[in-house]
């Protein structure tokens, strides 16, 4: 075959030039990396437009924009030291992410965690969760986390119990939530609600093992409810007669209780007239949540 008739060596200078350019690119890239490292990431994206405006600007790609921003948030969270300023930015970015994509459950969840762990911003964490609950009423994790926050960060048993109860009622929530909620309700002096909640969850659970566990807790809750009832009645008796009743039956006679409740485990309610304490013969330890508030 005869060689092809074309100036064949044209490519050589181009190839050499190309290699030179490659070297230049890598060199400048390294120089850029060095400069860039000095600029904190957040300064580069300090201004984040409002979520509602961004939602319009993102056209049909809200979820993608949300994802990209979410990646940025994760990186900010992952920094070795997270300042309060960064914390503020993280909250703002999370707010924007969840405005763009209100169904982004993971963002609420992880964000709520982060705002209570890597920085101390429980108020913002709760706001985020409440927003998440509004948009995702079927996700039990969000009210669950809200309950945790209320309990651990604010020590507010009542709100913690309400949130936990909300979580427990959502289909798909593990039964332990119901038991936890019941405990919280009892701690929050609402044993009747605990009983109702457990009874409802008990009804709805198909699993027999779970039913057994729930039954146990339900009985405990009934005990708590009854004990609370006794305490209340004894208190009123004392106010009326200026002394403690000698026996529990006196409460019925005084019209403070309609009848004496049955101990649900088949035991008896024992009354110590000296201390005014009522206890179940079957239960050693009462339902209580104990915790240590942050910084205590």
């Amino acid at each position, binding site marked *: *075959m*005869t060689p*092809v*008739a*074309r*100036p064949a060596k044209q490519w050589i200078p181009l190839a050499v030039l190309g290699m030179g350019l490659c070297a230049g690119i890598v060199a400048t890239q390294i120089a850029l990396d060095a400069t860039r490292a000095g600029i904190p990431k957040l300064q580069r994206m300090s201004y984040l437009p409002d979520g509602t405006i961004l939602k319009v600007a993102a056209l049909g790609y809200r979820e993608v924009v949300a994802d990209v921003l979410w990646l940025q948030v994760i990186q900010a969270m992952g920094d070795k030291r997270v300042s309060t300023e960064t914390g503020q930015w993280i909250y703002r970015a999370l707010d924007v992410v969840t405005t763009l994509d209100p169904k982004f459950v993971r963002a609420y969840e992880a964000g709520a965690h982060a705002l209570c762990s890597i920085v101390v911003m429980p108020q913002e964490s709760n706001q985020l969760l409440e927003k998440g609950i509004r948009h995702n009423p079927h996700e039990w994790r969000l009210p669950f986390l809200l309950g945790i926050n209320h309990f651990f960060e604010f020590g507010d048993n009542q709100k913690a119990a309400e949130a936990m109860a909300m979580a427990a009622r959502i289909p798909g929530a593990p039964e332990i939530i119901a038991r936890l909620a019941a405990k919280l309700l009892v701690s929050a002096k609402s044993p009747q609600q605990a009983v109702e909640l457990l009874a409802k969850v008990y009804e709805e659970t198909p699993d027999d093992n779970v039913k057994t566990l729930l039954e146990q807790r339900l009985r405990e809750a009934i005990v708590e409810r009854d004990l609370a009832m006794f305490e209340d009645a004894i208190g009123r008796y004392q106010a009326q007669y200026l002394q403690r009743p000698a026996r529990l039956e006196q409460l019925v006679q005084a019209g403070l209780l309609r009848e004496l409740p049955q101990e649900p485990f088949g035991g008896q309610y024992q009354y110590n007239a000296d201390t005014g304490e009522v206890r179940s013969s079957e239960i050693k330890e009462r339902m209580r949540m104990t915790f240590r508030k942050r910084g205590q």
Partner: protein
Amino acid sequence: MNAITIERVTKVYEPLWPWHRASTVLSDVSLSVAKGEIFGFLGHNGAGKTTTMKILLGLLRPTSGKVDVLGAPAGDVATHSQLGYLPEAPYFYDYLTAEEFLEFYGKLAGMSRDAIQCRIPILLKQVGLQEAQDRQLRKFSKGMLQRIGLAQALIQDPALVVLDEPMSGLDPMGRKEVRDLIINLREQGKTVFFSTHILSDVEMICDRVGILAKGKMLALGTVEELVDGQLAESIEVVCDGVIGTQIEPVRRLALRTLQSGARCLMVLPGHECLDEILEALRRAGARLVSIIPHKGSLEELFVHKSHGEG
């Protein structure tokens, strides 16, 4: 010295995927065009004419073979300053006016601004587009595009002009004008290499002719060389008042007969049998209308050759 030398050029399109078949567009094509010659390149659509031209211009690289254009290997852009090309069914930048278009090509050819300004009116007049100077090409008809394409090919007064189907899309008047233009170019000492499938054009103006079919050169030479000895002459006789096929000598000797009412046309193979036929016709009482001798034409050669090949 030759303006174009093509030696044993083969072009094979390698398949993109291994399970496709490679297609051979040109196989072992050789030809040469002397300086100052008009060379007609004949062939059906798809015979490989355009491919050959693209190889000449360096737009395609041959798979094997050697191509020289104006003393340098094809594709050497230095020689392109002496070259003009009109592609088949040209389409040009339709947002340009005729003048801007020629100006652009003049600049590409390395002409000075003044030279371009001098050249444009001459060329427009030559191709009959004086009035369309300021019109955008998008408003040009097909024939006008063909003409402006020709003007473009001639912008820098090149020594070699390569024209792909220059007469297509033109009316008979336009065809004649292009023929005259090509003859005019020869008078100026230019070399013209053009392809066509319209044979009468070639017969009239070409110094030499090449016939290409299915990527192979079938014949190469002057029109006379090709026609002489390749085809016998024939004679066409037309007469009234007889049914040709009822006359015995006609039936025996005529290559073809065509009957239309009382009129009969017959094609005879040569002079030798003419007397016998005429005698028989006279006896049958026919009235003679015409006798036309036919020299072998390139068309018949072309048909003959490409049929033989097919």
